[in-house]
């Protein structure tokens, strides 16, 4: 990994979002700085689902939040539909955010338990003065129908009366209320049971197709990512290891870290259990990341070069970019 570079940016007019050289750091003590995201760039094209995968603490969520300026990044630009959000005055940023909505990991705690479903979905519509009372009520009914909930049964109930899967449906309805053009989903299904997980993934796919959404999908689950994405970014300690379309990434990973991640996914078939070399240890602290390639301390192929020089993203196959001095053939 974890390297820098912009070779993977497609520089097309279709890019809804282009992030360049984004850096987010948190000061946790007088001289301790957590380098959560370091000089990271990516773009998302209209109608695409970009997935971001990586272990806990690699900066996935920080990255997504920095896109929404929650909080604003330390440096770098976030260009959404031609406007650099980092330069926008507060009021313009508020209105820009209506077109980018977020869905959070924990569906129950992301809904206010004191508000009814009607109030939850009405709140954004009311704040932005979208339509009359009657128009808003009709809109709320449509949104609930879209996400597979029966409006008459749910409108006057509160979040604690629903299961995790139903709460996630309510979150999706709320996120869609303002007609966003981009949806950022931060581990939307990791708190759900497998049978419910499939329902929500299919629903997100349907909503994306119906409303022509562009999606950033954050997950630690490689199988889930494969099912939903058009392009995958593999992150490690705040940097990009590899960017590729899912078919390429899963069959021919070019980065040692990507391969290690794929090898650790349990396979639900007792006849196909391979015992490959496991990745040893755990990621180093983001307060004091290794020099050069940040993955080198756990990489079997690391050489002196990896400690000295940070690898840059380079194209190794059509659409596949890897930041590694010794990519896998």
């Amino acid at each position: 990994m974890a390297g820098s570079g912009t070779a993977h940016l497609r520089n097309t007019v279709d890019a809804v979002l282009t992030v360049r050289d984004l850096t987010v750091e948190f000061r946790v003590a007088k001289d301790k700085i957590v380098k959560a995201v370091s000089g990271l760039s990516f773009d998302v094209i209209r109608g695409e689902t970009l997935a971001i995968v990586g272990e806990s603490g690699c900066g996935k969520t920080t990255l997504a939040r920095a896109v929404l300026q929650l909080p604003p990044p330390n440096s770098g630009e976030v260009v959404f539909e031609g406007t650099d959000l980092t330069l926008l005055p507060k009021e313009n940023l508020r209105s820009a955010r209506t077109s980018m909505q977020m869905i959070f990991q924990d569906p129950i705690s992301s809904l206010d338990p004191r508000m009814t479903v009607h109030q939850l979905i009405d709140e954004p519509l009311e704040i932005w003065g979208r339509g009359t009372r009657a128009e808003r009520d009709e809109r709320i009914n449509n949104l609930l129908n879209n996400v597979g909930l029966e409006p008459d049964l749910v409108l006057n109930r509160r979040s604690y009366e629903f299961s995790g899967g139903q709460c996630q449906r309510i979150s999706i309805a709320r996120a869609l209320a303002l007609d966003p053009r981009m949806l950022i989903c931060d581990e939307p299904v990791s708190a759900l049971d497998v049978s419910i997980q499939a329902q929500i993934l299919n629903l997100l796919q349907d909503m994306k197709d119906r409303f022509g959404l562009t999606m950033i999908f954050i997950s630690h689950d490689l199988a889930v990512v494969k099912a939903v994405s058009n392009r995958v970014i593999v992150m490690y300690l705040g940097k990009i290891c590899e960017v590729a379309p899912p078919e390429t990434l899963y069959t021919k990973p070019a980065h040692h870290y990507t391969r290690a991640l794929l090898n650790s996914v349990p396979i639900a078939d007792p006849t196909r259990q391979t015992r490959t070399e496991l990745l040893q240890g755990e990621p180093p602290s983001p307060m004091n990341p290794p020099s050069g390639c940040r993955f080198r301390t756990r990489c079997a192929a690391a050489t002196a070069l990896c400690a000295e020089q940070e690898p840059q993203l380079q194209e190794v196959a059509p659409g596949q970019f890897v930041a590694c001095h010794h990519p896998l053939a």
Partner: protein
Amino acid sequence: MSSLLSVKNMSINFDTPRGSLEAVRGVDIEIPAGMSVGVVGESGSGKTVMCRAAMGLLQGSNVKRSGTVVFDGHELTAMSKEEVRNLFGSGMAMIFQDPMTALNPVRRIGSQLSEGLRVRLGMSKADALARSKELLELVRIPNAEAVLKSFPYQLSGGMRQRVMIAIAIACNPKLLFADEPTTALDVTVQAQILQLLRELREDLKMSMVLVTHDLGVVAGNTDYVAVMYAGEIVEYAPTTKLFADMRMPYTEALLESIPKIDHKSGTRLAVIAGRLPDPTDRGAGCSFAPRCKYVQEKCHKEHPELKQDPDGHVYRCWFPIGVSL
């Protein structure tokens, strides 16, 4: 093959304001000595309650238990609390899902790890600490000396789970209950912990009950699998047989609904419509009937009994897959 743990007709009911909640209904399960048995099912299917009840950990005025549990020749259900307690550590041990809340946050690792050794094996403080260090090395914790003096918050999730495993195996238990031991961990760390459990099981000749919702984890780490749904065991078979030749429509649906890493990207996932039935009102027929794609009239009316194939494959279905009636 003798069974180390044998649970017969176990039912657990909780009294709740909404009425009696049937968490576990008439469960029979045998854990053969030296084997690893997986228990899979969705949240609320009764996996954890069954394990805790088997260990005698469920007590309280709102719990109604019935059935028998025999562990290694002792009938736990007929023993006093104190007698059951004496089996913990050297007989049975448990590791829990969340390693942060299972460890005491205000005590050092060394003191938590040596406690069992001193109480159960009567070791001196110095001996227990020395053995604790060996145990940490056994679960592959680097720099064990320093970890003994650490508090849980100073360790990562994976390290904490290793400490939990060290505590559980400290007195050489015959049976280890692992309740979702890797659910809170990253996939790379999960692979490390599962490998560690496999190796320890072999070295210590330990049996294991592995509770998980992940069929992938079950496939690579168990000899037998019990599938639970709505408080019942709905299918029980050797792991290879279960995956190759499943009988229960629920097992099939569960397996189909997981996204798989070798599936084509962008394919729609198969879903199990609906959700688990209300545990205070299970209804008359098969619990899975409202969600089953092969459902017939009989399924709604009559509760299926457990059936057994000649090879020991057990299932609870009126119209099992692959069986001509």
